[in-house]
């Protein structure tokens, strides 16, 4: 029997420093990742909202110019005397338009154009425009 056989084998400790560090690292990573994911989600939401707003503004401008070019249109008005119609620009973007006419000017008609876009999240974007059309331009 030698001396080495008398010495009990050295047990590896249950609290291995590397394992403890790895545990702390994983916990800290999970904590940090939750904060970072929130940042990325917030950035994504902001970018999507501003992208939709840009498209809505551009679509409303296009529709406003189209309506200003021909405010009479098909001249189909509802019982309130307003022409109400919608223009689908994209599957998720529809411009709602209300055109009302003011006959008080002596030599023409003043058209009030109200445009709205409602986002899928419920936010409403609005744009108002007006167009004065002299009677001489309406008559063929």
């Amino acid at each position, binding site marked *: 029997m030698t001396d080495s056989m008398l010495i009990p084998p050295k047990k590896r400790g249950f609290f291995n420093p*590397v394992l403890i560090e790895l545990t702390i690292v994983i916990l800290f990573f999970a904590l940090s990742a939750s904060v970072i994911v929130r940042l990325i989600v917030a*950035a994504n939401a*902001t*970018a999507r909202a501003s992208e939709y707003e840009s498209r809505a503004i551009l679509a409303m401008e296009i529709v406003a110019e189209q309506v200003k070019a021909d405010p009479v249109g098909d001249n189909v008005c509802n019982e309130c005397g307003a022409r109400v119609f919608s223009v689908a620009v994209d599957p998720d973007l529809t411009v709602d338009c209300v055109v009302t006419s003011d006959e008080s000017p002596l030599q023409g008609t*003043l058209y009030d154009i109200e445009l709205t876009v409602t986002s899928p999240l419920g936010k409403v974007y609005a*744009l108002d425009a007006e167009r004065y059309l002299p009677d001489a331009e309406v008559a063929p």
Partner: protein
Amino acid sequence: MKQYPSRMGVGASSILLILVIVSLTLFASLSLIQARADAALTRKTAVSTAAYYEADASAQQMIAALDDALQQGESPETIEGVQLQADKTAAFSVTANDGHVLRVVADVSSGRSVILSYRYESAEGWAQESAGTLWQGG
């Protein structure tokens, strides 16, 4: 069976974690800053568009009022802001709230207003800089 000692010492995973976290935080912050900048630009565009259409609506109302005045045989100058020029044109401008102005010139000689000019431009005039630093050739 012979056990080899682990090559990874204490602290290596911490350093790796710090690098990963710093990188992720940097990219997330950059994306958030970019998104906010885009949103600010979009807001400016919305304000500018609304200002233009507001000025345009005011101009259309003034043209209607101008036509009314001409129909009633009144001078275009009875409308506030309208100036009658020597060449029988009426001119007026509408100031937008984003630093622009809509200048309108209409011919009123025929008894109704005919738009000659409809310009939306910056309210501030531009100052020509000295061209002394430019290469003049030769």
